[in-house]
């Protein structure tokens, strides 16, 4: 899923500063699962903003809502009339939802979240990046563990010298993380596929990543 984080409340209040009538629109997909922009978070943020603005003596009229998927006009259209009555919309969707609403409606669409990465639920309250969306999967060779996302250096022929004796990586963000290539080695052992380690990967062709600009997927057979 797409993992996002709510922006600091100070930043959100600053964005809302010029407005007196806004819609807080959440999304019931990825950001609801990662507890950043679902119905519950919409309610909480709306309450916090109302309290802050009331204590500033500048009350704000907030409408609360959620759509099934904010990356899809079909669902956003259900909110069209409400959206058109607002001075601005504070979107609690990922960046895709904010872009989608901005393309469709002629009013400011403000992001309440910082969109972070494609992640898994490690356990409740912890989400971890496991896919980088590089556009060319090699997971069948690496036991289903992605070195592009999970290795700090995106190494295809790891591990590097930065792996510690306990199997963690020298690069540590939010606590020590296991070396992706140690995980791959152990996983391939369990699958009896350790011979995969003997294959050297050639330099990666990054053209499928986003270095060539925004990507697009077209399925001719599905076009109407």
């Amino acid at each position: 899923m797409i993992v996002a984080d709510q922006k600091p409340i100070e930043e959100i209040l600053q964005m809302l500063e010029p407005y007196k009538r806004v819609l807080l629109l959440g999304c019931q997909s990825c950001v609801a699962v990662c507890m950043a922009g679902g119905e519950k978070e919409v309610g909480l943020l709306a309450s916090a903003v109302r309290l802050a603005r009331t204590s500033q003596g500048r009350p704000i009229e907030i409408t609360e809502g959620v759509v099934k998927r904010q990356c899809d006009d079909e669902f956003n259209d259900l909110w069209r009339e409400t959206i058109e009555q607002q001075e601005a919309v504070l979107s609690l969707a990922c960046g895709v939802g904010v872009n989608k609403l901005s393309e469709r409606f002629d009013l400011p669409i403000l992001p309440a979240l910082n969109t972070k990465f494609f992640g898994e639920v490690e356990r409740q309250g912890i989400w971890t990046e496991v896919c980088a969306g590089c556009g060319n999967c090699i997971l069948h060779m690496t036991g289903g563990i992605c070195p592009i996302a999970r290795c700090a250096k995106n190494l295809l022929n790891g591990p590097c010298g930065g792996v510690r004796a306990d199997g963690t990586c020298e690069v540590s963000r939010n606590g020590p993380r296991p070396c992706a290539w140690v995980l791959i080695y152990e996983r391939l052992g369990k699958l009896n596929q350790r011979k995969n380690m003997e294959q050297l990967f050639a330099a990666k062709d990054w053209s499928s990543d986003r270095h060539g600009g925004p990507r697009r997927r077209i399925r001719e057979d599905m076009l109407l």
Partner: protein
Amino acid sequence: MSAHAEPKIVAFCCHYCAFAAADLAGVLRLKYPPNVHIIRLPCTGKLDALYVLKAFEAGADGVIVAGCLEGSCHFISGNIRAKKRVLAIKNLLPKLGIAPERLEFFNLSSAQGDRFAQIAREMVERVRALGSFHPAEEEDSHDRRGSEAHRRDLTDAGAL
């Protein structure tokens, strides 16, 4: 902001300990200020940050969250979870212009009726010293809407 004559305190109490302690305070005829409005939760682990914010929106000047003593939660760790949530809300409140002292978490057992009365007195005094937080109930429609939503949330929680 208009001033309340008396501060309003909302107390979210767990069924097994804090609510029973409040009940005991009544049975023992202990005096405590009538400003404390008790809302029973099945466990403080049911507490959501939204309950607290909605309480403030609905006109509360202070909020108490009271659960079992640590290690005695009927649901094992609900009070520990609630404590973490209260801490997170206390960090948020100053950013909304609300003094964090208006919210407090307490642990007490069902046998501590006197402690409940003491907590009620302490919080009323503390909040009275801080003054009224909130615009009066008649302030605007947001308050009324907040109040209704608050009741709805609590009904959903099985608290009312």
